C-alpha cells in the first residue's frame, strides 16, 4: 500500500464506522480481507500501543504486521473520535500509542490529531 492509499484509508476511518460494509474506499475493504489481518493481534497491538509508555516499555513493532498496526491505529482513532470512556481518560496515552504504531508516518498522525483537536 502506498502513501496515497494509506491516506485514503485514514480519511475513511475518520468519517465512517470501522466495518468493511461501511468502507466505501476499496483500499480499506481490501485491508479487511488481508491474509495477515488478525483480530487478536489487532487487540494486542492496541494494548501495546496504549500501555507501553505507561509501563516504560518500548513495543517491538517489528513483530507486528503493518496491517494489524493499521487496524490498531484506527481502533484508537475511532475511540478518540467518539470522545467517550475509556478513551477520554487516557487521551495522552492513546495519542502516544497512535504515534508509536505509525512511527514511519508521523505526518498522518499529526494530521489526524489536528482534525480531532
Amino acid at each position, binding site marked *: 500500500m502506498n502513501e496515497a492509499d494509506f491516506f485514503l484509508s485514514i480519511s475513511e476511518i475518520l468519517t465512517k464506522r470501522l466495518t468493511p460494509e461501511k468502507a466505501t474506499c476499496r483500499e480499506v475493504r481490501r485491508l479487511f480481507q488481508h491474509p495477515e489481518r488478525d483480530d487478536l493481534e489487532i*487487540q494486542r497491538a*492496541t*494494548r*501495546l500501543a496504549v*500501555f507501553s509508555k*505507561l509501563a516504560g516499555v518500548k513495543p517491538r513493532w517489528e513483530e507486528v504486521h503493518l496491517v494489524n498496526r493499521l487496524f490498531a491505529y484506527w481502533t484508537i482513532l475511532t*475511540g478518540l473520535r467518539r470522545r467517550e*470512556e*475509556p*478513551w477520554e481518560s487516557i487521551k495522552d496515552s492513546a495519542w502516544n500509542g497512535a504515534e508509536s504504531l505509525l512511527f514511519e508516518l508521523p505526518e498522518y498522525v499529526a494530521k489526524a490529531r489536528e482534525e480531532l483537536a
Partner: protein
Amino acid sequence: MSRISNINNSAREEYIVSVLSRETGLEGKVTPDLAVFDFLLFDDRDYRIIGEIKTRTDFYQEWFVADHKIDWLLKANETFRCTPWFVIYCLEDKMIYRLNLYDDYEYESVTRTNRYSTGNQTDKGRDIPLKYWERIDPNSSPNGGITSIQIK
C-alpha cells in the same frame, strides 16, 4: 462497615505491585500519578492485567469500591481485553485483598463519605464482602515482607 480512607503513597503502591508481580509471575508497573488506573501487570508479549489500588487504614468485613472506578475498569477492559483487578491494602492487618472484577460477587450499594477529604466528598459504590476477595499475605510471598524502607 468500610469507610473511604485511601491514603495515597507511591512507595506503598510500588510495594503492593511488587507483591502482585511475584504472585502472578508477571512484570508490574505503577502508572504515573495522574493516570486513571494505578498499575499494569504484563509479560514480554502482552499486557494482562490493569487495576486500581486503595489503601484502607482499618480492617472491615467488606471493602468499599467506588462505582466510577469499577465502571471505568470494566469499560476499559471491553476495549482492551485485559483482566480488571481492584486491590485493597489494609494497614491494620498488613494484607492485600484482590478482586477480579469479572468474577461473580454480591454487594450492597452504598454511599460513602471520604473522611480525609477537605470538602464533603461522597462516592456511590459497593460494599463487597470479604469472602469474594483473595487475601494475599505479603510475608508469605517469596522474598516478601514489609520493611520500613518499602513503606514510608
